[in-house]
């Protein structure tokens, strides 16, 4: 029964995908939307039942289908595992997935390829479920690459625009760089543990049944982390995520904010026992996370595209999660993943609602004053903004505060970096809010006439998500964490329990004050002074560097892409020519020798006789005289 239900959970979105792919053209847009939504909703329902079952029994559900790959020292099976961690992930993947499907029915209503959109979304959910449900690294890798593929398909959904296609391609290739790291990590793990199953790996580590070389284990952990960097947009592989905003907004919300980008965190949490054995790698993770969080936040300060701001904010928040992972606080990272999924999905969907009303305009310099016409959107957006900024009692406050608190206890500089990033977050999020919803409308008259609140199918998910963003923090209150208890079976070493003492309350206060400072700055600049960000050409100084994202894309182009092309030209014009010249030169040589040799055969007997005499002399000399 469990097997069938698990397969239903897995394949419901896939069936939705098949229906939409093969019959989508004949269906009306709404119908394919409903099919897609229903498929994910079924998964959500099944997940819910499993969730309740596992919460009570505390026994993971295992499903083993058949052998997939066979290698010299281990086999890989198609096998799935529904334990606390995967079910938690499935809950918000399918839950938020359902909401976003609902949202998309209205949002994508006018698109001619709506059935494809839902097909891809379903396929994405299918792969995401595979990623989460797999009981070994290779099944996770199927999902890992599969979600990358869907991300590619959805970013490039409007394929007539080659810029969007470029963004899609970039996302896929950057992900693949990470995937190579992941793959190498899998190789080393397989080589070390003779298995890729999570349970086997855990058993080996816990029982110490055979010796594991710590150096190789660290390298494996580092490689896996590179994989996570690619998928979760950490330095140095983060640049694809802001570009990925080329896709439709629901895609940004689902894939590039709530679910896919958290796959890296899922993987590290899943393998927490491996990473615990590699403290150096954990340090690297913490530092990379903190730095990413700071840099992304600082770039976010000056962006004017509403979705770009949210994208950098996502990168920044993911950085905070990695900071937590690096500090060994896996539960806290998971907590932040969940709260982040709520408020970031809400923010993206809200921005989608705004863009919908603005007829595709994404530049905040041409928005403003929308609060009057888009009340629901505004309120939900405000709640989520407060949540991300870290103000109590919203969800973001608890998770972010826990991360900073852990950082404070382990590593003060990282805490400082994290706090600064949080202040910046508060600033740019309120900057976004003020520029979009406050003051007067700055767009064209034409746009102003058409401003309207979005329909119910769009606002309903917003409301649900806003409620979750408001109260989601309840799952892990300081001192009384349901989440920590729930996750206890899957995490071997638990983050030490912070006693809520004076220091802790002080830290909370500092965090709140920091957030308020950020909000206050934004208020001073954009409400009091009514400042509007300058046009592109007028930006100068450090702001210009920030606006151009530290020129990272340009640097990558100059350092990696250009040299590869140059190498290609070199190979094509020099090496290929040289090799073929040499090989076919041998043929030509035979030709030339023949042509030259032919002239020796000139028909003159006198000449032949000379040759004959000389030949005889040479033979005699060789035989008799040369020794």
């Amino acid at each position, binding site marked *: 029964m469990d097997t069938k239900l698990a397969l239903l959970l897995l394949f419901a979105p896939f069936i939705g995908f098949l229906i939409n792919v093969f019959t989508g053209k004949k269906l009306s847009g709404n119908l394919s939307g409903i099919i897609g939504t229903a498929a994910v909703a079924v998964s959500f329902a099944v997940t819910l039942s499993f969730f309740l079952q596992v919460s009570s029994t505390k026994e993971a559900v295992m499903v083993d289908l058949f052998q997939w790959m066979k290698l010299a020292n281990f086999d890989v099976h198609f096998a799935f595992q529904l334990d606390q961690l995967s079910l938690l992930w499935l809950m918000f993947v399918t839950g938020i997935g359902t909401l976003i499907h609902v949202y998309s029915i209205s949002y994508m209503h006018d698109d001619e390829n709506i059935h494809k959109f839902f097909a891809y979304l379903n396929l994405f959910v299918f792969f995401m479920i595979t990623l989460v449900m797999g009981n070994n690294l290779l099944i996770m890798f199927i999902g890992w690459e599969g979600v990358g593929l869907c991300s590619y398909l959805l970013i490039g959904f409007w394929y007539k625009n080659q810029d969007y296609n470029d963004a899609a391609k970039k996302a896929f290739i950057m992900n693949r760089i990470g995937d190579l790291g992941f793959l190498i990590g899998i190789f080393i793990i397989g080589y070390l543990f003779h298995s890729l199953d999570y349970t086997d790996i855990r058993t080996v580590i816990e029982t110490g049944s055979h010796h594991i070389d710590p150096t190789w284990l660290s390298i494996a952990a580092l490689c896996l982390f590179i994989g996570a960097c690619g998928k979760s947009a950490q330095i140095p592989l983060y640049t694809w995520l802001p570009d990925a905003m080329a896709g439709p907004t629901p895609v940004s919300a689902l894939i590039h904010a709530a679910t896919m980008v958290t796959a890296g965190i899922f993987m590290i949490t899943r393998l927490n026992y491996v990473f615990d054995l590699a403290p150096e790698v954990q340090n690297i993770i913490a530092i990379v996370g903190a730095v990413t969080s700071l840099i992304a936040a600082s770039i976010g300060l000056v962006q004017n595209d509403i979705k770009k701001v949210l994208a950098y904010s996502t990168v920044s928040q993911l950085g905070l999660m990695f900071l937590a992972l690096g500090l060994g606080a896996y539960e806290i990272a998971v907590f932040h993943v969940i709260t982040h999924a709520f408020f970031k999905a809400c923010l993206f969907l809200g921005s989608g609602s705004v863009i919908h009303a603005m007829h595709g305009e994404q530049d905040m310099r041409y928005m403003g004053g929308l609060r009057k016409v888009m009340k629901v959107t505004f309120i939900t957006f405000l709640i989520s903004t407060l949540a991300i900024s870290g103000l109590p009692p919203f969800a973001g406050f608890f998770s972010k505060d826990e991360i900073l608190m852990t950082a404070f206890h382990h590593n003060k500089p990282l805490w400082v970096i994290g706090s600064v990033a949080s202040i910046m977050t508060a600033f740019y999020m309120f900057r976004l809010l003020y520029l979009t919803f406050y003051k007067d409308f700055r767009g064209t008259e034409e746009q102003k006439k058409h401003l309207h609140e979005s329909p119910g199918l769009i606002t309903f998910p917003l409301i649900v998500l806003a409620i979750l963003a408001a109260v989601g923090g309840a799952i892990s209150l300081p001192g009384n964490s349901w989440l920590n208890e729930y996750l206890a079976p899957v995490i071997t070493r638990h983050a030490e329990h912070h006693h809520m003492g004076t220091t802790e309350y002080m830290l909370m206060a500092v965090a709140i004050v920091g957030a308020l400072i950020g909000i206050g700055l934004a208020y001073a600049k954009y409400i009091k002074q009514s400042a509007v960000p300058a046009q592109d050409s007028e930006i100068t100084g450090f702001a210009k560097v920030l606006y151009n994202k530290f020129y990272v894309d340009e640097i990558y182009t100059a350092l990696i892409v250009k040299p590869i092309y140059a190498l290609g030209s070199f190979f094509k014009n020099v090496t290929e020519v040289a090799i073929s010249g040499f090989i076919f030169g041998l043929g030509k040589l035979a030709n030339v020798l023949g042509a030259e040799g*032919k002239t020796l055969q000139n*028909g*003159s*007997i*006198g000449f032949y006789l000379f040759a004959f*005499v000389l030949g005889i002399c040479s033979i005699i000399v060789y035989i008799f005289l040369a020794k």
Partner: protein
Amino acid sequence: MENILQQIGIENYIYLSTLLFCVGAFGVLYRRNAIVMFMSIEIMLNAVNLLLVAFSTYHQDAAGQVFVFFSMAVAAAEVAVGLAILVAIYRNLNNIDIDSLKKLKG
């Protein structure tokens, strides 16, 4: 019966026939007239014959002289055919200058 080699020495015959042979070779290379080249070839053959006879005496064996007979037979045959060819060439080209016989080229 005395042996002439006791007085003259085989090495002198070797020198003589070597030189004679070289003269023949020289003639072949030097002249353009096919008939004279033929004669040079005869000189070379005779140089060899002479040496054969000298060694026949040295070894006191008749085999060397028998070889000379065969050599003569071959020489005769060669001359007969060769001259016939020359005559045929002469009929066609009206000369027997070997430098003008250049049809045999690759």
